[in-house]
């Protein structure tokens, strides 16, 4: 019930006194210049929201609505054409992007693992990375995403899609990020694996109180993750009833199913 009462068209939480929000996004726009016969493309337009520590925000919308691009702006993988992104009160342009990306970890839709074992993949870090990368920690982190210790020695190429996705989440967690950005974490997975990944994310939210921004076109994830939802269409935030309709449609479908 708590989750449902929050999933509305509101796009900001009530600020806590004295603390900067984890993210404060002001009138963010992103456009690609015209190139090679392709016209210029407006990807995001005037997107604003705030996200408090420990909260979850789900970006909902059809594919091509700019959800991934918005996530990529939050860890500065993309450079907005206008507007500002503040992370814990500071404009991200004033931060070293490499540090920012360690604080704000992104898990991409299609998991990318490199040649080698799962251990090799978990240990892939820049030379100046700090943190605990001991065997015990690797095993603990794998357990957090529902994989056992034996997975460490497996060839990354032999993992199933769901296992790969969970290894990429573990790889993100090992850097001790403060925010987890999840880009369509379940869309490439079959229902049982999708459910496992959702469980994993929920556990992280509860156990670590981690701030999470996830994009999805699956209402199920919005409902289960709780927190706020933001509906994007063609790069713009929609605050009309379409989001409610989207969620109501899902609830209605669930009602029929049971």
């Amino acid at each position, binding site marked *: 019930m708590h989750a449902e009462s929050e999933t509305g068209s509101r796009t900001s939480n009530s600020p806590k006194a004295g603390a900067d929000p984890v993210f404060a996004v002001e009138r963010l726009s992103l456009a*690609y*210049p015209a*190139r*090679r016969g392709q016209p210029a493309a407006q990807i995001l337009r005037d997107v604003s929201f705030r996200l408090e520590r420990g909260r979850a925000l789900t970006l909902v919308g059809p594919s091509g609505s700019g959800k991934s691009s918005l996530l990529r702006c939050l*860890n*500065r*993988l*993309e*450079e907005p054409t206008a507007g500002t992104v503040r992370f814990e009160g500071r404009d991200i*342009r004033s931060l070293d*992007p*490499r*540090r920012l*990306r*360690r604080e704000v*970890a*992104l898990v*991409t839709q*299609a998991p*990318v693992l*490199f040649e080698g074992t799962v251990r090799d993949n978990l240990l*892939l*870090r*820049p030379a100046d*990375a700090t943190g605990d990368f001991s065997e015990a920690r690797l095993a603990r982190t794998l357990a957090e995403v529902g994989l056992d210790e034996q997975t460490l020695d497996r060839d990354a190429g032999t993992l199933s899609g769901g296992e790969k996705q969970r290894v990429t989440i573990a*790889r*993100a967690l090992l*850097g001790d990020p403060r925010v987890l950005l999840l880009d369509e974490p379940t869309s490439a997975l079959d229902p049982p694996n999708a459910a496992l990944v959702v469980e994993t994310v929920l556990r992280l939210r509860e156990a670590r109180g981690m701030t999470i921004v996830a994009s999805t076109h699956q209402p199920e994830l919005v409902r289960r993750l709780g927190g706020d939802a933001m509906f994007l269409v063609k790069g713009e935030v929609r605050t009309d009833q379409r989001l409610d309709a989207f969620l109501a449609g899902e609830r209605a479908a669930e009602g029929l199913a049971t």
Partner: protein
Amino acid sequence: MSSGVIDLSVWQLGLALLLVAAVVAVSLRQALGLERDLALGAVRTVVQLYGVGLILAAVFAAARWYWVVLILVAMTAVATHAAVSRLTRPLPRGYPIAAAALTVSTVATLAYVIFVVVQVRPWYDPQYIIPIAGMILGNSMTSAALAGERLQGELHARAAEVETRLVLGFSGREAVQPLVRSALRAAMIPTVNGLMTVGLVQLPGMMTGQILAGSSPLVAIRYQIVVMFMLAAATAVGALIFVRLAVHGYLTPAHQLRRYLV
């Protein structure tokens, strides 16, 4: 053994042209449709080589350093254009990048060979510097184009891998390093293979020419050894500079990959 060369008369060139006429006959008989191109190609071969011959004869006769430098600049410009137009995808700032890579690799290798190894005096003696520069440019051009082509292909195919490294906090340069390595290897493998097989599979053109011109094969092979080592250096330097500058255009100072370019 005779020294010196048999000078070819116009009539002898005409006899050589009969070889092309034979190919035209084959083309007609087999309906290959190549007659027009063969005829045009034969005419261009004669006109272009006579043109170059006349220019080189004038430069050799004048023996002025500024004429030699002008020829080298023109050769570099043509090689730059050839390298850039061989790339199948457009490269941001392709011309200045190719020009820089070819100029640096040619000047550095040429200077070492002319001043240090062969010790040509005066340094601008066209008999040495022009053919050596031509070999360096030709090979640098090929290796730069190969490296560029491979780099673009790798960036296109492995963009997600690059961004995964960026997401983990690697710098842009670190994130593209495996792709740069692969591009450099692709560019240098022909040169390395050349070092392995030279003299076994075919005699290099320069060595053949020197022998035809009356040099002892033992003199000719020494020049060829210098040339092989020189080309190894020139292709490596050319490809390295080209790839480093080219990959820079795909990254931003904020360690981002310009995805719309790849």
